[in-house]
């Protein structure tokens, strides 16, 4: 049921005009029993720690990566979003979880 993203080397897509959206097979939800956000896939469940769930929540196909970073920078002033978020989104893209 549970899984872990592998870090296979693929060209980053976060620099482009890519507007990340959750792949249709996935369900993003809050788990109030465990107090965490989850990505639920056909065969496994991925625990999204910290603010990862909020980042994924912004991937609705309307925002570019830049737009997502700006939005988060507003929410979390001083956090290293510009350096961390694009690579995080790239990883989720490599997994096939973001389109």
């Amino acid at each position, binding site marked *: *049921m*549970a899984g*872990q993203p592998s870090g296979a080397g693929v060209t980053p897509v976060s620099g482009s005009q890519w507007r990340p959206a959750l792949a249709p097979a996935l369900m993003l939800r809050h788990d109030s*029993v465990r107090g965490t956000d989850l990505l*639920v896939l*056909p065969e496994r*469940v991925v625990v999204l*720690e910290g603010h990862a769930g909020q980042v994924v929540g912004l991937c609705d196909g309307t925002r570019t990566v830049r737009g997502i970073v700006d939005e988060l920078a507003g929410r979390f002033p001083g956090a290293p979003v510009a350096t961390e978020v694009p690579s995080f989104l790239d990883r989720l893209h490599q997994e096939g979880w973001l389109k």
Partner: protein
Amino acid sequence: MTTHQAPVNGARPWALLAELTHACPLHCPYCSNPLELARRSTELSTGQWTDVLRQAAALGVVHTHLSGGEPLLRPDLERIVAAAEAAGIYTQLVTSGTGLDEARLGALCAAGLRSVQLSVQHADAKANDRIAGRPSSFAAKERAAALVRRAGLPLGLNVVLHRDNLDAVDDLIELGEAWGVDRIELANTQFYGWGLLNRAALLPTRDQLARARETVERRRERLAGRIDLVWVVPDYFDGVAKPCMGGWGAVSLTVAPDGTVLPCPAAASLPDLDAPNVRDRPLDWIWEHSPAFNRFRGTGWMSGPCGGCPRREEDFGGCRCQAYALTGDAARTDPACALSPDHHLIRSLTDTGPVQEPPPYVYRRPGAVPEPGHGGSPEPAGR
């Protein structure tokens, strides 16, 4: 910012296997349903399943396999899917494909169905239908796969592997590609219940397994990034016990058609388990306090080689149902493990190889078990 693996020994269950009915148009000789199939008249009602799903969600369940038997035989399947969706539980339909048409799939999607797992018995239609014990079941699967694809739902193929289809693994993978699936699960037969009853007919040779394994490795490289290829190990041949269900009462629970709650679908075969039922008790009590769920939880119950073994947190001592089926004691080390004092029970079968003239299948049907009182005991391997 990281994602991490869900805890294997989580206090709360992640997944629910909902066996909605034991009725099935197919008759697979390795079926994971118990030998004693629940009658339709004993099945939980729509309202009871709705309540089970609500309770399961409150307990922490986020994913359910809606399975059977053939869940499409439940006319209220759409309402059960809707109940899961309303509770926030991700649904996957586990089906043989028979009975799935466009209207039915449309209704299920509208109710919130998220993904589909389709069983296939062989890549060749005739061989498929012989194993399934039903003519034209292959054609139904082909249609079902196309419908699911068109609906845009993720589709997984699941194949139980044995003597009569291991040589077709390459063709099965090709079939999955042609049908446009996202995932192929190749699961070697587990020999308890119906599988044990049919062991002499289903047990493969080491050569067959080695070839199939090579094929999978070769194919996996080529399919990387497109199709997820999963190989479920043949524990009889590897000498390694499998971490059954991720541990007893650790990550998931099974609700049988009549409301019996089990740590694993095969656990119905354990005679003194005293399995609880959702008709009598709330699900959280069953998970946390029932003797059945605590019986083999953790490592405290272990004896023999498991007790001091460094692998005990990884494989949890293997399969309790297999230990019981082969030794008569569910608390012993799984005989599949090379360290088990009972390992010869399995080695003697895998070393001598399968029988030349395999017996005919005992197809999975109500009342098919020759001597009901001896249903769980192993058949002689036919030497």
